[in-house]
């Protein structure tokens, strides 16, 4: 097969890789992208997008169940709904198909050459791609590693059979009657909640003393409360041991070293993700590592000249929007522009029920920066829009420096707060002070008013509480 020579080669067409390739293409850089599976990576195919589709379907179903139960204060009654998960999944696959097709189209429009296959470094300038029709050699001036990450597998609960990863959970065509979720991080909680809403009896087994351990307990409390309402059993400080001998239950040791047998027709293991550093020839180019991750500098350069790395393979937080921003930056650097990673904030969201958003520093983290803080927290209980949609649980919290009122962090928990992350991120990235947020008119009636009120509260004069 004829050797391809190009200026830029991107390995992996996930959100980091495809954004990098599109931007490079826009800038007139001769670009090739290699992908072993479908364009869009984990995010579009087996992560962010399909899980949100499933969560939405579960929400709608649960609402109908709630109405049918007759307890709704809205005065609506309905008959018992039915769920055809196979149909839900095919609807979800349709969305994924449209999006991945869209990415392929965008790459084409940007004149990026797409090569389907598994890439492996031969040296720092040369990659061999195993394609269906043979080995394709690609030589590039610059190579971007965007290989992403994969779910962590537990040695005593290997994936297969009844033990599934998030990928497997998003492809189930029948709702499991009993679902055990190992790992109470955001992926486990998002999927566990969705299946609970679709009718599964869900048990969440978390090794740490509390769920969503990276968020503070104030933020997590409304989520835990809602899990209880949905009938989810939460076991914290508990260790999953193995499947039972008949493979129809999960053996768990609780905090008091007592053994439990949790019946489960499916066991979903969501104990985190690890960078994909194997199989693409990392050994051939011998890059410096930062723990499990490929080490990068503030321009995403690896230890080898002309080799960049972006996205999950480079470290935490493993989030699609971080990868996209890195991809865009690297493309512009390759095109000769002056760029450096100077972002102030990478917001993170848990699409749990209610949703959790964290942008910037939590009060605890902010204390490490400055001892003098101003913190304002406004509850949705006092927000008209939240009341009118039965979403009174949760709050918005703003953390600022006391000396100059510059906002360091914004967190929220509540129904639909994921959309507020745009405002949170913009405020911090622009270097807003409390007065900037307090002085911006927020539309009424919206949940966003709670953001303005939290800033006012920090300044000592919230109006609606």
């Amino acid at each position: 097969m004829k050797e391809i020579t190009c200026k830029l080669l991107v390995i992996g067409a996930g959100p980091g890789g495809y954004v990098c390739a599109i931007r490079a293409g826009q800038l007139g850089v001769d670009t090739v992208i290699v992908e072993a599976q479908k364009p869009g990576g984990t995010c579009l195919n087996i992560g962010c997008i399909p899980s949100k589709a499933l969560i939405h379907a579960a929400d709608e179903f649960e609402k109908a169940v709630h109405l049918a139960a007759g307890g709704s204060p809205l005065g609506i009654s309905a008959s018992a709904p039915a769920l055809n998960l196979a149909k839900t999944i095919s609807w979800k696959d349709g969305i994924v198909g449209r999006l991945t097709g869209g990415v392929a189209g965008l790459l084409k429009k940007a004149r990026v050459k797409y090569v389907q296959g598994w890439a492996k470094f031969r040296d720092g300038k040369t990659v061999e791609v195993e394609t269906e029709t043979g080995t394709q050699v690609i030589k590039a001036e610059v190579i971007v590693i965007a290989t992403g990450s994969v779910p962590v597998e537990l040695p005593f609960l290997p994936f297969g059979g009844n033990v599934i990863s998030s990928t497997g959970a998003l492809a189930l065509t029948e709702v499991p009657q009993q679902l055990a979720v190992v790992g109470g991080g955001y992926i486990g909680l998002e999927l566990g909640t969705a299946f609970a809403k679709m009718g599964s009896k869900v048990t969440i087994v978390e090794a740490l003393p509390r769920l969503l351990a990276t968020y503070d307990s104030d933020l997590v409390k409304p989520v835990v409360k809602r899990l209880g309402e949905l009938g989810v059993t939460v076991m914290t400080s508990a260790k999953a041991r193995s499947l039972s001998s008949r493979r129809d239950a999960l053996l768990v040791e609780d905090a008091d070293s007592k053994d439990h047998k949790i019946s489960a027709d499916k066991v979903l293991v969501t104990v985190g993700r690890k960078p994909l550093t194997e199989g693409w020839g990392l050994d051939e180019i011998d890059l410096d590592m930062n723990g499990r991750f490929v080490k990068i500098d503030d321009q995403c350069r690896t230890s080898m000249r002309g080799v960049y790395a972006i996205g999950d393979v480079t470290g935490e937080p493993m989030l699609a929007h971080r990868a996209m921003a890195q991809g865009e930056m690297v493309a512009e650097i390759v095109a000769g522009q002056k760029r450096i990673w100077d972002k102030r904030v990478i917001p993170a969201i848990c699409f749990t029920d209610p949703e959790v958003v964290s942008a910037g520093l939590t009060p605890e983290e902010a204390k490490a920066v400055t001892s003098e803080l101003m913190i304002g927290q406004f509850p949705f209980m006092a927000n008209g829009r939240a009341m009118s949609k039965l979403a009174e649980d949760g709050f918005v919290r703003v953390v600022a420096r006391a000396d100059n009122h510059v906002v360091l962090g914004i967190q929220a928990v509540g129904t639909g707060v994921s959309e507020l992350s745009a405002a949170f991120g913009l405020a911090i990235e622009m270097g807003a002070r409390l007065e900037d947020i307090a002085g911006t008119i927020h539309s009424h009636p919206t949940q966003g008013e709670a953001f303005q009120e939290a800033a006012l509260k920090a300044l000592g004069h919230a109006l609606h509480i």
Partner: protein
Amino acid sequence: MGEHVIKLPDVGEGVAEAELVEWHVKVGDLVREDTVLAAVMTDKATVEIPSPVDGKVIWLGAEVGDTVAIGSAIVRLEVAGDGNVKAGGAPSVPKPEAAKEPVAKPEPKREAKPEVLKQTPPPKAAIGLATTGAPRPEGDKPLASPAVRQRAREAGVDLRQVTGSGPAGRISHEDLEAFIARGPQQAARGGGLVADNSVQDIKVVGLRRKIAEKMSLAKSRIPHITYVEEVDVTALEDLRASLNKSKRADQPKLTMLPFLMRAMVKAISEQPQLNSIFDDDAGVIHQYGAVNIGMAAQTSNGLVVAVIKHAEARDLWDCAAEVNRLADAAKSGTATREELSGSTITITSLGAMGGIATTPVINYPEVAIVGVNKMMIRPMWDGASFIPRKIMNLSSSFDHRVIDGWDAAVFVQRIKALMETPATIFID
């Protein structure tokens, strides 16, 4: 209505006169008690003169750049009530006596034994006049929107150097534009080359004038002999790196300077005449026991000399800590007069700009100054091959009236030997 005369107060021990460097008021201004009227400069520190009463300025007794004797009237205020001048307005206070000679002749008397850091800070000592905005504290990220950051990057501007006019020091597009417009990186040239016939008159006042006087005095009175020698600091650098690696958290990071100071202390113990003040008017050499090492430091307004007192009684770490403390104080303008005077020998260094050799000017009336040049890796012949060694030159000047060339050479060679075998610095 009465008249209140304000005289130049005693602004520091042993100071007979001060130079007026800035007026903060003009005739006709209304002032309140504590309003700053003027800034005067003594030896090395700038002192602000506050008004003791409320009133209206009716007379200013000096111009910027004038040297004014302590006790002379400098301002007259019209005040409610009687004031401090007899009613009837007797021919008021004589014009301030401008000091007889503009050149500060009477050197502040040096005591035989410099006193141990007695702190009597003068009222509101502040080096540096009103400048444009305080620099951002180190380590603080500049506050600017992503668009401003990107424009700055493309224009090659380091935002840490841009003063933000917005709340909390936020840098706006306008701040950035203003910075670029006046920045040196902007070669604001139109089409062709144009002859520039303008002459700008810059009055030499304040610290700059002090430096000018001191330099003329040193160069006109002292016949300098300058001696340059190279020092192989490879072993010293290894030692320094290893000490820095194993140092305790509370210990300062070691630079080359404390090692040089300790080496000088050792060399001076063998040649005490180098650690002297030559009172050439009286024809007396005051040879000191205390090794008070002046450290020339560049500040935003010019050169000042911070003094590490009693280096002979400080160990390596102590020297390093004191160097750091004084350097910070000198740069931030908080150094006291005591911390800026009383040296018996001086070190001068241009750091990374140090060049190959310099001809240091002696800090009059001292008799020796040691100049540190830039350390560079140079190929040295070890008898069989060239090997890379870390070499640093010392350029030192001596007062040839009282120090013979031979003694100067012995002194520098002794320092060289100590620094090349650094263990000997620490062995008595």
